[in-house]
């Protein structure tokens, strides 16, 4: 089914958010996910069901800025 991931249309087989992240090798702990403009609670990520036409935004942590941490 077709969904939108970060603005790009993609044809996916997975029906849950957890499976989709897994297929993309994205560890749930390193991403926040918006599904149709709703932030998904981290504990619900694995079980959230996906439907045709869903719009997903993966938001990643970005730390850089200064020099050494």
């Amino acid at each position, binding site marked *: 089914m077709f969904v939108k991931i970060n603005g790009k249309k993609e044809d996916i087989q997975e029906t849950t958010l957890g499976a989709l992240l897994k297929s993309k*090798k994205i560890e749930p702990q*390193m991403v926040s996910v918006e599904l149709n403009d709703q932030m998904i609670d981290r504990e619900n990520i694995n079980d959230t069901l996906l439907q045709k036409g869903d719009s997903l935004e993966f938001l990643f*942590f970005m730390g*850089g*800025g200064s*020099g050494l941490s």
Partner: protein
Amino acid sequence: MAFTEEQLVRYSRHIILSEVGGKGQKKIRQAKVLVVGAGGLGAPISLYLAAAGIGTIGLIDGDAVDLTNLQRQIIHHTADIGRPKVLSAQEKIKDLNPDVEVIPYQKLLDAENAIEIFNDYEYVIDGTDNFPTKFLINDASYFAKKPLIHGGILRFDGQLFTIIPDESACYRCVFPKLPPQGVVPSCQEAGVLGALAGLIGTLQATEVLKLILGVGNPLTNRILTYHALQTLFREIAIKKNPSCPLCGLDPTIKTLEMEVQEVCDFDPLETAHKDH
């Protein structure tokens, strides 16, 4: 206090803008902005704020200039290697614009000193590189009720957004807690294209100037991301999260604390950081 003849010339390209004018330039002169981190983001942020004529710039950084910094931290020069970053930066700012008062804090921001320092400023800009400090800045800005311009860069990507306490989504509305240690690589581990720091830092400086002038639409409730490899800017709508542990309906964070990063429970090398 009126501007001197020289200042009128110095700021003439601002003053000629109808959105700025003499009145706006005065607002800029009266503004007090705290820049946390005098590194990749802090360099362009503080240089542009200094050039703009910001009255008071506070700079916090506990590090000394290192050779690896010079690829992107353009406020520091080769001769500065080994010098405290805040002093190196203070000198460049003073050279650029002697009107600016620079207050250097040669230390790390922590839960004990954050609120006290933040209270002396009107705006805070995050130019740090580590998550415990990024979360601390978000929380301290919320408790001190100071608008915050958040920014981050990694590899070829960067992002920023503005947070107005109680009004717009905060960092924790999007990222409720720290990523476990090792899950997200740092620039030190993963690298960063130097010019990216200039771009994101300059956007952060622009956003704080807009707040000071009260012009345009602030970058609130949306995250601006930049992907250098595709030359792609994207805007992602966000909103205040009712379950945010800081600014939500039933907050669990009620006092300022430096959150400790959990040790991660999987092998980060197996799961490469993947982006779009």
